[in-house]
């Protein structure tokens, strides 16, 4: 045990020295993340969504899900990702209670549809860093609620395939406008 500890300690010291020596990491020409874009485009946050409006968004999503016969969980959050309204349809799988909230939270906090994460992660290893960011969920079904060019919250849907979830989610998002 003592010997193993000493070896690990030695290894740690070696790693620390190696990283200190490599403070300047040379650029990797193959990595698309090396580019520094001039522009920073984003949708600004607006007034947090009200309960009445959240209910309207969820009702539109629920109507679409009912029409198609897909049991879903529907979450609506404010701009900070905190829950405002939630409903679980009868027979929706239990995992979706959390997943729908996660999708809504990620869409609000990152100001983009969660399909963006899904697509980028699918592009390959240079985008795998996304999975290390806080609160990311790389599955479509989370969409910001944009009114007059401002994000007032987000909707997250889960229960079926990602594509089914996103269909319902977008039906809800449309009702916010």
């Amino acid at each position, binding site marked *: 045990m003592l010997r193993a500890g000493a070896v690990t300690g030695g290894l740690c010291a070696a790693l620390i020295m190696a990283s200190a020596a490599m403070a300047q990491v040379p650029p990797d020409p193959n990595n698309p993340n090396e580019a520094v874009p001039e522009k920073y485009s984003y949708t600004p946050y607006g007034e947090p969504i009200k309960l009445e409006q959240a209910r309207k968004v969820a009702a539109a999503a629920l109507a679409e899900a009912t029409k198609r016969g897909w049991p879903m969980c529907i979450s609506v959050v404010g701009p900070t990702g905190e*829950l*405002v309204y939630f409903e*679980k349809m009868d027979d929706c799988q239990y995992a979706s209670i959390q997943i729908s909230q996660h999708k809504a939270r990620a869409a609000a906090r990152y100001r983009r549809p969660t399909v963006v994460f899904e697509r980028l992660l699918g592009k390959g290893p240079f985008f795998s860093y996304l999975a290390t960011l806080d609160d990311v969920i790389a599955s479509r079904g989370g969409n910001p609620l944009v009114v007059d060019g401002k994000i007032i919250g987000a909707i997250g849907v889960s229960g079926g395939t990602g594509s089914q979830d996103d269909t319902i989610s977008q039906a809800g998002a449309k009702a916010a406008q």
Partner: protein
Amino acid sequence: MKQRPMLTLDDCKKISAAAEAEARRNNWNVCIAILDDGGHLLHLARMDGATPANARIALEKGRTAAETRRSTANWQERVAKRIELLRMPQVTPVQGGVPIVVEGTCVGAVGVSGVQSHEDEQIAAAGIKALG
């Protein structure tokens, strides 16, 4: 095989609407959470003016009542007499979580947070009453 009642989304909407009406009647802004008997969230509505903390607390009060089949008011009383009960896992011993009992079976619970604890419970009870 034993059959037991289960809350549907329609039931939840009925409960939530009645609870919200009780809150509005008193000019209270609260969050109302409805869970099944396994502590899984079925329905949540956070009224304008209720905080993100209210959402978390309503959910935890509801979870406590649903999973233990006791009101959180009962937990509060028992904790006052036996402080060691605070160590019970996943228990929020603050009034405002009320089990929903149908035909002698606990089918879930309502958790409310936003005003004074006894007022939270009043809202939860009004919601459950609407179930008939």
